[in-house]
């Protein structure tokens, strides 16, 4: 089974090869304003980084810091990063309508669901989508619904999950075992 997971992750990495920025335009999702969520949330993270801002941020990354160096590698080829994350004081306080409007966009041609996780134990759902155009991936979308947290991530451009994986340990993210250790 571990071999299957490794194969899956390897396929993800292979699928998300560097691509032309021109193809990436449609990979940007029209994220709702989420005003209703903002008023209910105890904590809101709203990040909109387009190409010029990413370039500006990259100039301020210190290559001597491991965290910054990993970030620099991860953003190579990325032209947009959009994150909306809401934390609530009570369970499932967020309406499904906004989530559904995003999911509908991900049913459009080009988007493929890569991973769908539904955990009854932890009561969370995580869906990972990639957008593929001409055998090349030019977008990533993550929808994560947890009891007290709802997050949408949309990354536009050339994405290498392996590089994102390299961020582990730099941002307090536990190390993922991507290799098959039989």
């Amino acid at each position: 089974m571990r071999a299957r997971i490794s194969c899956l992750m390897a396929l993800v990495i292979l699928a998300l090869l560097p691509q032309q920025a021109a193809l990436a335009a449609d990979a940007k999702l029209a994220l709702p304003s989420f005003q209703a969520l903002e008023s209910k949330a105890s904590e809101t993270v709203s990040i909109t980084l387009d190409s010029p801002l990413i370039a500006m941020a990259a100039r301020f990354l210190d290559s001597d810091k491991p965290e910054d160096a990993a970030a620099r590698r991860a953003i190579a080829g990325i032209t947009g990063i959009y994150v909306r994350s809401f934390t609530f004081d009570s369970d499932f306080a967020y309406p499904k309508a906004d989530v559904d409007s995003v999911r509908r966009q991900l049913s459009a041609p080009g988007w493929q669901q890569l991973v769908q996780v539904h955990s009854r134990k932890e009561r969370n759902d995580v869906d990972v989508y990639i957008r593929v155009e001409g055998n090349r991936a030019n977008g990533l979308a993550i929808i994560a619904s947890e009891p007290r947290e709802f997050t949408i991530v949309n990354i536009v451009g050339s994405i290498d999950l392996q590089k994102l994986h390299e961020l582990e340990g730099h941002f307090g993210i536990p190390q993922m075992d991507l290799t098959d250790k039989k």
Partner: protein
Amino acid sequence: MPVNPDLEQQLREALRRVDPAEGFAERVQARIERERLRPQRPRPALYRWAPQALAAALLMAALGLYGWHAQRERQGLEARQQLLEALRVTGQKLDLAYRGVKDAARPATAGDAGA
């Protein structure tokens, strides 16, 4: 050296003392007063204020440049912070997905999660 008497006479005639016309002194005084009261023609403003204007312009330019740099640095650091935060959230959620897949793959906990 002998002096020509005619020339001497001519000089005496020419340089003889002549009383000024009547009112000459008053006219001179009046003219002096007029000159005093007449507004002085100012020096062109360009010449008068040029050094100060140049200094002020240089100061403003230096301040503007400093402000621009400070603002760019502030924006850059803010963008960097946002980028790191975005990558942190992305990594967290990918990790969540991975753990879900991993749990689903584990036979003992196969009923807990599905991927």
